[in-house]
């Protein structure tokens, strides 16, 4: 895990190669994270993977989060790992919701796919697409992976209805019913 100054050094180096790519850094509870411009995500990931001294060669996880009501709304998180130094680095790309503010309700947030860099990302990007409706441009086979193919909606978004039937416990009935 790079420490806080180490994280700033990484940011500085990325600035030299890809100006404007790093929007922010955060170092919280010993975890280092870079907030990256989504348009340059593949460039930054490939630099972190290839550059001497960095060599984060393993994408240990790719996942997303919905930060509603914050804007930009969606975050795609890349957890990188260097297995020689056992150092972890989180890369975040924040995506705005194109359907917000009267936009096309069917439009999906888009980001470049990193399957060419990390083949393991193929299924994980499909999962993110499945649950959050984030489209990965350049993904070889972007379709649902866990939900049925004919499922409608993006169930892990925060505005997705919980659904089902309300469970009525005795306690709730007595106190709030």
């Amino acid at each position, binding site marked *: 895990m790079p420490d806080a100054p180490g994280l700033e050094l990484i940011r500085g180096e990325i600035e030299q190669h890809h100006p404007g790519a790093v929007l922010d850094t955060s170092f919280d509870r010993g975890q280092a994270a870079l907030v990256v411009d989504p348009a340059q995500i593949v460039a930054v990931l490939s630099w972190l993977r290839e550059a001497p001294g960095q060599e984060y060669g393993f994408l240990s996880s790719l996942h997303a989060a919905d930060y509603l009501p914050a804007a930009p709304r969606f975050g795609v998180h890349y957890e990188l790992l260097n297995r020689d130094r056992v150092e972890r680095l989180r890369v975040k790309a924040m995506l705005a919701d194109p359907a917000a503010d009267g936009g096309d309700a069917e439009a999906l947030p888009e980001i470049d796919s990193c399957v060419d860099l990390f083949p393991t990302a193929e299924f994980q990007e499909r999962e993110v697409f499945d649950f959050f409706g984030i489209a990965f441009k350049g993904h070889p086979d972007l379709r649902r992976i*866990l*939900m049925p193919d004919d499922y409608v909606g993006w169930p892990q978004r925060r505005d*997705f209805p*919980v*659904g*089902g039937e309300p*469970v009525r416990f005795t306690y709730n009935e007595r106190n709030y019913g």
Partner: protein
Amino acid sequence: MEVKRQKAGDVPLGERTTMRERQLRARNMLRGDLEGEELERYVEERVVMTKFDQMLGWARANSMFPLTFGLACCAIEAPISIVTARYDLARFGAEALRASPRQADLIILSGRVSIKMAPVVRRLYDQMLEPKWVMAMGACSSSAGMFSNYAVVQGADKFMPVDIYVPGCPPRPEAVLYGFTKLQRKIMGSPDPGWRQRYNANGSEEWARGGPRSEPSGEAAEAYERAREQIAGGPGATGEPVGA
């Protein structure tokens, strides 16, 4: 056919006799020991009169073949625990778990049914032969329990008929056994299966072609055609799924 009349009590042991003959023989054997009303009552107590339906229900209830089938954590309680020596489902005549729905007549829905699993469960149910019974075991398969969300069917009775619900999360094996004996009592009553019509679950077994009702379901017919085409070197012969 000639009916051979014989005096009751003269028939040698081991020979096949009618109920009436045995009844009279029992009375003969007791002649002298019991008299009058006592004798009548003694004989009545030793003879069981029943209807064929009741006997059939009794036989069905006491020789159940549960399907070896588990959905989630409830599967640890049933069918795994209840067949062990400690709980011993064999006491109720159901120790023979069958691994094929064709040979089973009870399916225990042991756990939550996800929306992707639901068609599979329904297919298993359809493949079981009549008469068949369903036990929804635990809160999840009865009502989705705590899984009030997008991935889980809100109660298995949304898509298939359920005969008995066992509450609990998970139910103790004793509760499953209690539910099982309740189900046995239900079976002995020969309940009318007509209510399953609302689930299209009557006569929904898939039959092999040429069987007594050679009308396979749509899916089975498709799979059959696909297999034929592959054998014959048709469009599916390259190994690619047809229609993908």
